[in-house]
């Protein structure tokens, strides 16, 4: 860079010195501003526009839950000691007095029974964690179903996926810390799953547990991950996530006045800041009331960890449900044939724990596809354009159907994570539930796909109907010649625009590459493209719309005045 061109005049440099604030507040503000450049920040963000819609709230809920997690978690660290050193409990919870247990469990009990507000903070922390993952999940579903992950936001989608995984990791490491029977069995399952991984699995387990399960090392190690490494990564990812939101500006739903080139909404100051800031307190308040009134993880009921007892009906936190469910779903034997097998080797054979490994496949595939979905979809559709206007889910029927199928798949796994409770609460056979779920896991997503796609197409047809014929007015009128019919009222242009302003591309067919050849990959892409776009409902075209107006006009003259004006203005702009 050359420093030869003089960009600023001497007077401009002196301007900052010359300004004399009149008030005390002004003097303080000016002092800070001259040192940190607040003017620029205020100019950039003070009136920045954020689109407003209730579905944009879930990301905020996730962010606020995380803040609450940091606050409550910090409080917990002041008393909780993650040591696995053995101690005798002498706190005020009588049933456990005198029992040998780890310091971790003893201090978790101390927090619950002897520190005032400790139980409240522990419950607040746990509820906030559940809400954190839930809000992230719903936020991701919103982003998926509205197509907000499309260019230029693909990388931010990836950051979001990473945040979800970090949220799960934070949840799992935290859940394991109290070192009671329930979380110990959770760790035991992780140990068993790790050991199933070929070649490295056994050693991964050794290195995590510092020897054989459970050992005396794992809780402090999980603690460091839980209170330092994972939150630090989450903070960095949140910073990147929000930075990119500001860079891209927020997406908006289609509607009158909204275009790909603008943002319509409320300015940060004062409305958006007030709503978003107030919303933090609402989230906090709701979590506080729940934590005060609904007990969660009553860890004094479980007793110190011991490898021999377990409770029937034990459930993991909700977000671990699918991982647990898919393990329960998998059969170990098909008939009399075991799925587990041994690869014969000169050194005695290596075991492949197929019943544990196979369930990891759908989970891994689901996460992988989630991460790269923006590129998969862009490749299939051939759509490389920037999108700032969201899709209404019905206007992307195949994507919406894929989303619904995935949600169904996830929910069946999740439900299976509670198959024992479903069995006891609904008086059903546990085995039958499991057998049926083994079928449902394959059939359910297909049904969901077909149903969702049909519902989307029907909704699109309904939109066409509304545009071409208007809303049913609920008034039956009799025409002079005796015919009865229902009166229809024409929607306003504002409503109409929302219903017609979308694209519904036709399948594009295979495209030759630069050498004029259609490659095999391109043929595959074209087939997928065909599948993606073949069932489609087109938006009402201008010709159809004008014809419908014409029809209205000739059909009966009672609303002719308004529609004639419409038609004139449409034709004039044509």
């Amino acid at each position, binding site marked *: 860079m050359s420093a030869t061109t003089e960009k600023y005049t001497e007077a401009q440099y002196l301007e900052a010195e010359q300004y004399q604030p009149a008030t005390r507040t002004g003097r303080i503000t000016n002092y800070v501003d001259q040192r940190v450049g607040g003017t620029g920040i205020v100019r950039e963000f003070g009136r920045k526009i954020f689109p407003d819609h209730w579905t944009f709230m879930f990301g905020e809920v996730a962010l606020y839950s995380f803040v609450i997690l940091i606050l409550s978690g910090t409080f917990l660290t002041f008393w909780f000691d993650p040591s*696995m050193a053995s101690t005798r409990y002498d706190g005020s919870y009588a049933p456990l007095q005198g029992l040998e247990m780890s310091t971790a469990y003893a201090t978790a009990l101390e927090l619950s029974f002897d520190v005032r507000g400790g139980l409240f903070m522990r419950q607040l922390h746990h509820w906030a964690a559940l809400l954190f993952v839930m809000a992230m999940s719903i936020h991701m579903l919103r982003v998926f179903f509205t197509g907000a992950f499309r260019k230029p936001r693909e990388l931010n989608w990836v950051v979001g996926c990473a945040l979800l995984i970090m949220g799960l990791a934070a949840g799992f490491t935290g859940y394991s810390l109290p070192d009671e029977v329930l979380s110990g*069995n959770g760790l035991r399952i992780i*140990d068993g799953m790790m050991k199933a991984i070929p070649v490295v699995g056994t050693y991964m387990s050794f290195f995590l547990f510092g020897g054989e399960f459970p050992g005396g090392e794992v809780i402090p190690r999980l603690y460091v991950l839980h209170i330092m490494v994972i939150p630090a990564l989450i903070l960095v990812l949140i910073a990147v996530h929000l930075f990119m939101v500001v860079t891209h500006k927020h997406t908006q739903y289609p509607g009158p*006045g909204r275009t790909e080139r603008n*943002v319509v909404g409320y300015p940060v100051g004062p409305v958006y800041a007030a709503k978003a800031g107030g919303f933090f307190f609402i989230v906090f*308040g709701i979590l*506080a009331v729940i934590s005060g009134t609904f007990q969660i993880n009553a860890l004094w009921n479980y007793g110190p960890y011991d490898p021999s007892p377990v409770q029937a009906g034990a459930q993991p936190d909700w977000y671990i449900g699918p991982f647990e469910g898919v393990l329960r779903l998998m059969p170990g034997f098909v008939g009399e044939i075991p*799925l587990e097998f041994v690869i014969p080797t000169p050194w005695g054979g290596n075991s492949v724990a197929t019943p544990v490994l196979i369930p990891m496949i759908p989970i891994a595939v689901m996460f992988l596809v989630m991460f790269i979905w923006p590129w998969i979809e862009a490749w299939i559709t051939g759509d490389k354009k920037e999108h700032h206007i969201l899709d209404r889910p019905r206007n992307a029927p195949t994507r919406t159907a894929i989303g619904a199928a995935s949600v169904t798949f996830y929910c069946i796994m999740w439900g299976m994570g509670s198959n024992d409770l479903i069995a006891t609460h609904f008086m059903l056979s546990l085995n039958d539930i499991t057998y049926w779920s083994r079928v449902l896991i394959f059939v359910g997503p297909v049904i969901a796909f077909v149903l969702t796609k049909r519902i989307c197409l029907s909704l699109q047809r309904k939109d066409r109907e509304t545009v071409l014929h208007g809303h049913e007015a609920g008034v039956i009128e009799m025409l002079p010649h005796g015919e009865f019919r229902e009166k229809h009222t024409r929607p306003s242009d504002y409503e109409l625009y929302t219903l017609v302003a979308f694209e519904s591309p036709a399948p594009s067919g295979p495209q030759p590459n630069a050498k004029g050849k259609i490659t095999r990959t391109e043929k595959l892409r074209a087939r997928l493209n065909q599948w993606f776009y073949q069932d489609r409902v087109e938006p009402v075209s201008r010709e159809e719309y004008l014809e419908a107006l014409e029809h209205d006009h000739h059909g009966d003259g009672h609303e002719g005045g308004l529609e004639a004006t419409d038609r004139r203005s449409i034709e004039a702009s044509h």
Partner: protein
Amino acid sequence: MGEHGHGDPTESGAVIKAGDGESGKYAIDNPGLPPHRPRVADEDPKAEKRSERQVATLFLISIIGTVIFFIGYFAVELSEDLQALRLQNTLLGVGVGFAMLGIGLGVVHWAKTLMPDHELVEDRKPLRKEAERQEAEQIIDDVLEESGIKRRPLIRNTLIGAAVLAPLPFVLTLRDLDRSEDFGVERMRHSMWDEGVRLVRDPTGTPIRAADITIGSAMHVIPENLREVSGHAARLSEKAKAVVLVVRMNPDDIQQVTPGREDWTYDGIIACSKVCTHVGCPVALYERHTHHLLCPCHQSTFDAAQEFKVVFGPAGRPLPQLPITVDDEGFLVARSDFTEPVGPTYWERGSTDPEGDYNA
């Protein structure tokens, strides 16, 4: 930045005017922002005053919430009585809840009823200007050129080599995450059971006579020498391999005895590892009529009458059986260690007995 039209969209002052932008693309052109609909508080000073009072009331509720928290914190005396804890927890939660909700709802109500609700329009910036991109590319070219990294492959390649190797020491230091003396997979093949080790009750450590176990009952036992292991963690790790379930059934009900296992049971008493072969949960439930053992974690079900064969669920192997008999004094003892590793399957488990250290 523009603002809502206050009436007819064709004359609106918005940036997006009727028909602006992508004209002709859709059935009708973008009609621009709908006219602003004034709220009650915009037009009726009484309603405005009422909103103001509502907001202030919500803030007052917040203050009351904080007071409730103080009451819960100071006035409730914690004791061994759980009722007091419950009361305190409820007061703290409801107090903080009101304190926060009062502020939150108040501010949002303020924003929704009293602050302007005109939607504004802002242009999106193009993500990148071509001239700026070229300038940036030039800068990067200059930087690379001045560093000389392209012209000096020797420097570049040695740097890459060094940078790849430099983090390895930090990876290597993780090796001592497991510092055990018996490091490796061999330890997983052995538990504390051995010939003559008594089966004792957990946690009392009292030995068990065959007559103590009635037909149809089940109990979990540990090896007598487990109590001698010093250190809580070491004891738990040994227990995680050695915990055993003993069930007694009518000897006629035993349906299957593999050759070589004829003397592994004693008068209908049969013992197995309590650690599930699926992912390691304790197989804790026994159903006496069917002789089925069920693991509550993933519902693997094993049939004690058929040498703990898997009859349902995800487990891939039967539970390892512990050979037992009675000693001179009539107490139950193990005949040997398990003849296979207990617990979940791991890669190095194999099927055979490479070292020949299983004597069965």
